[in-house]
């Protein structure tokens, strides 16, 4: 049995989750602590990927990154190919899963008593230092929960990935796409195995998350 889809899924999901953390942490912090014009719009845009059909999201992403698209032109000029590569699958997984992370982390940051951050400031610490030593550790449970949820969601993305990365065996065919392909060609045993592995992986991750959530710190 071809194990490539499993390795690709792992690579794509890990990369997408790192990307989600890098972009989602500052955004979640911003939404949790600041009032600025356009904040309501920003919050809505963050949630949109959760409720829009994946094909719609995929369509717009494709328009954006194709050679004629706004982003695609820039990337093309830089010699980077994005559409229908594994990087496009990362983009798809990132767009599909960021909202879960941002909402969880934002709730976590909002639950941190603002006076603790003020206390840290009165003790001479910079905003950067306050975030890493107070805000993030105190919101760590919510942030970890968001990370695991986002990772699971990235692992399971189908629609967006299909639109922007296609289902090229050995190149962009992630586990969910491979399962679909196997079922289409009536290779039920292999579809069954891959499905079980996917279910087992996510179950283990979520159980680990449950254990984390009970930890006191």
């Amino acid at each position: 049995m071809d194990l490539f889809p499993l390795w690709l899924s792992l690579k794509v999901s890990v990369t997408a989750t790192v990307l989600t953390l890098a972009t989602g942490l500052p955004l979640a912090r911003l939404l949790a602590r600041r009032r600025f014009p356009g904040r309501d719009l920003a919050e809505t845009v963050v949630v949109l990927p959760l409720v829009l059909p994946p094909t719609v999201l995929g369509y717009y992403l494709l328009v954006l990154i194709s050679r004629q698209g706004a982003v695609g032109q820039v990337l093309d000029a830089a010699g980077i190919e994005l559409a229908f590569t594994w990087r496009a699958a990362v983009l798809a997984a990132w767009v599909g899963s960021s909202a879960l992370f941002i909402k969880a982390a934002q709730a976590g940051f909002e639950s941190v008593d603002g006076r603790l951050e003020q206390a840290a400031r009165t003790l001479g610490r910079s905003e950067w230092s306050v975030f890493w030593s107070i805000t993030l550790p105190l919101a760590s449970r919510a942030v970890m929960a968001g990370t695991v949820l986002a990772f699971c969601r990235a692992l399971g993305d189908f629609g967006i990935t299909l639109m922007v990365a296609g289902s090229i065996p050995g190149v962009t065919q992630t586990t969910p796409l491979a399962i679909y392909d196997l079922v289409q060609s009536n290779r039920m045993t292999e579809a069954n195995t891959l499905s079980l592995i996917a279910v087992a992986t996510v179950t283990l991750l979520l159980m680990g998350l449950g254990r984390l959530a009970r930890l006191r710190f």
Partner: protein
Amino acid sequence: MALSLEVKKKLPGFTLDVTWEAGDEVVTLFGPSGAGKTLTLQCLAGLIRPDAGRIVVNGTVFFDDARGVDMPTQRRRLGYVFQGYALFPHLSVRDNVAYGLRDLPAAARRQRTQEVLERLGLVDLGARQPRDLSGGQQQRVALGRALAPDPALLLLDEPLSALDLPLRQSLRDDLRRILAEWGTAAVLVTHDFTEAYRLGDRIVVYENGRVIQAAPRAELLWQPASERVAGIVGIRNVLRGTVLKASPDRIQFRWRDQLLEAVNSPTRSYLPPPESPLAFFIRPEYVRLIRKDRGTPDPDHHMNLMRGRVVDEADFGTTWTLYIKLDVAGAPAQGHYDLEIEVPRLVYEILDIAHDRQWQLSIHRGSIHVLPSSPFSPAGERAG
């Protein structure tokens, strides 16, 4: 330490507009909840930006809207003890205390942390988490954390309000001792006058976003600037009479058909015209009962004589409070009584006040305190 503060800040439904100064001492900001005390502290620490004003500590301008100065909180280097303490729940006691020392080299940081823990008797608790500490221990950790970086000024927001009453009193004395030992100038916020008086060298009285008096604590107790200050600091028997004659050192006035004489303060040069209203107060513990077994009262010792009846009483353990209605016609000055007086338990028992309700009273002229602002002129005009 020298602190001068002038702050204006408009919030929805509330305006803070205060000016006060302090030297190298403990200042308490006292007043009812919602008077703007905590807001002042936050402006001082740079946690909230005033709309206008100027804040200078030890010659360093923290804030000056005219010159566009607004020093960030981090650089003001003030110690801030928050209401409820705001200890970092994920850090040990030791790490909480060391938190503000990050700029020191590791060895110096350890040494200073140890020193602070020792001085506050926290060494044995160093490894504990804040949630495992009692209220009193939490207060010490909060003080240690704020004092460790050796701030020029310590700010304390209702440091005792989170505690139960018996603990509160012992921690008040604890806090007083620590403040005295460390010798740090401090600004302390409280809505409890006993606390303000016990802890502060100087008291700034807040009401509704304004300062209605700022004075050394004894002056506040004995010479409140107005009827409102007297009310807020909990002075009893704040009464109103009518002036008969005022001279620089005496004021004669009429109250409830009695002719009373009070000492005037020559320095205040308060000379209300005859027939004008006069506010004054009489401390309950300074009203004397005339003993019936000692003959006629001597006018040199017993002035401002009045007759009345005990109409109500309250047992406060070591003292009794008696509510006296004078033997004159007309409505009593304070509901169902005219004067509230306080007698030690021993006096209550010796004079058998429980059964003997009719008494003659005297008040020394020095114990009737005239409030300089008449009730009909705006408060807070007095300088200083």
